[in-house]
């Protein structure tokens, strides 16, 4: 399955494809996604992101087509 990700700048971008998606095994959790992106302090990191614009913990099971977004400022503008 593929999920759309909006990651923080310290994430490892190598797992992200040209369209901004990460391929994961079916039923993978948010924690697994964060691990794949090499994001540290995963339980804490999960509080900074939303799955389909809802709060979710590291154990949350992702589904194909989900959007995982980290809160961010607009850097400027």
């Amino acid at each position, binding site marked *: 399955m593929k999920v759309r990700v909006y990651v923080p700048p310290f994430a490892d971008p190598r797992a992200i494809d040209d369209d*901004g998606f990460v391929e994961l095994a079916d039923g993978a959790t948010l924690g697994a996604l964060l691990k794949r992106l090499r994001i540290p302090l995963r339980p804490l990191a999960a509080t900074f992101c939303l799955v389909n614009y809802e709060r979710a913990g590291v154990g949350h099971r992702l589904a194909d087509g989900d959007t995982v977004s980290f809160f961010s400022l*607009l850097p400027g503008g």
Partner: protein
Amino acid sequence: MRGMMGKVLIVDLTTGTMEEKAIPEETYRDYLGGVGLAVRLLTDMIPVGADPLGPGNALAFMSGLLTGSGSMMTGRWMVCCKSPLTGGWGDANCGGTFSPEIKRCGWDGIIFRGVSPKPVAFVADENGPRLVDASAWWGMDAIESEDAIKASWSGKKKPAIATIGQAAEKLSLISGISNDGGRYAARSGVGAVMGSKRLKALALAGSKPIVCADPARVRDLSKAFAAKIGKLKLPKVFTGAFMPLLGKMLGLKVVVPVDGILASAILKKWGTIYNNTAGLVNGDSPVRNWGGSVKDYGASRYRSVNPDRLRERESKKYNCFSCPIGCGGICDATGTGAAGKHMHKPEYETCCAFGALVLNDDLDTIMLCNDICNRSGLDTISAGTVVAFALECYERGVITKEDADGLELRWGDSGAIVELLRMMAERRGLGDLLADGVAIAAKRLGKGAEELAVHAGGQEPGMHDGRMDPMMAVSFAADPTPGRHTISAGVYYNVSHLWEYVSWAPKVTKPYPKSKEYAASDEETLKSVAGACMKQLLDATGGCLFALTTGLQHWRFFDWLAAATGDARTPDEWMEAGRRIQTARAAFGARERLADEGKAWSRNYSLANPRIYGDPPLREGPLAGKTVPLAEMVVRYRREFGWDEDSGAPRPETMRTLGLSVHS
């Protein structure tokens, strides 16, 4: 076109006469509304080479194509004219409640020409449009006069009011037009044009329906968007103290795509002041007249502008018409020295212009400067830049204590900053010399002051550093209204998701190295051009930039356009209208600058002060060593638009392709 009222009102202030002008369907199709419709009409109405402060200039108050249709974040009004500040096309826009009222009065715009023999206000209510004597309000500040008009109002419905303050009456070229008690269409010197016409105010209270093609579809889109915004909540850890860390993270060497709707949760909490400290640590905020960095305004100082400190003073939130975010707020002004008990919350631009830019770390002083500007009508971006310019002139001996009427103009000196600002608002002493912006002030001063005058094409740039966002620098230099921070920038483009709709817009879907933005490449050029075309669509429809930055996948702009108008054109075709409007704005400026050569009001400025693009680069801070190849980027931008690479004038073949009249 559905969603529009089908006509504009033209008011001749010299004769006091008015006429309604019906707008042909093909004009709406090609130019939409707002700035687009204004540039189409004013290009014909304003005589070539007209004095921008004379009777020949026209001043258009425009509503947007989507305003009042039921769509969200589409309630901005635009004011357009020949700019006395830059000599070219001038426009400015503002939220608040004024825009829908233009349409409810029955028009898509109200255009003023001529000069009234005495101060007047334009009123439109259930008794129709008329001019009334405004002598009693002339001399009042913008907020005072709005209150006085409201107090004297006898109509059934409360009016929406736009007014000018004393700085505009005194023709300060950096003055704007207020509505809703101090929210501003501030740029391009539009206030001076209103002052030159002796037009003190517009008060509108209409009741005509605004009819769109598919209201049910518009409503469904709006409900979905409002629901998304409504449920967004920031984690508790997002406090003002956390912002510098977050800002620093975003100043790293990698640019990441941002899901803009989550950033709007931050806007919901603080408004634009979220950037007060984040912008300093990542280099977005210019410091010390664009010659310094966070090294000059470190943590012990920038903590004073922690957004939480302003939020503590916020007594209520403020939403513009049709906005579910509500980035505005009303603040308690007690103890600041402001003239009233409350004021609109200072925007980030104001906090930076009267904070880091002048090395002032006193929040009360920033709030007081906000109040002085909002009352007198001075544009806070320009006025803060002028103060910074004056401080540096003083430091270098270009301005002496004697020139400054005994003031010691030292960096960060609150008393001197406030007094100098008052002098500008009142055109008193040195303030008179400074009240028309840094470019004109530098010419008046001589002695090398031009080097210290930070402007682009005559207008002071917004408080976002082009050395951090090269697309912003291009926009400052190459837009027909130079110096504007809201036109096109990497940060806006990257959250817009424009590429999902527009076939030629480059895709930004995965992290990329920041260094890529500093290369004059085809991709960066296309992003600049796409951003500029999109911005013209916003200004034609009343759209808010912060709506675009939620991302078009959330803020369904093109779907709203189709539903409101019934026009089934593709996003590429809508963008073509944006390109036409942008080119028409450029053509107007090129025509006027050529015709004005040798005249007293001629403006012929270089692209931008080299500090804006880092020539030489800063030696320290987050932008140390950064230089933007601006000249090459501007050439590419103009080439992509089909404009002359040297002058920026649209080429005849471009004009013909877009169906624009070619002027000799």
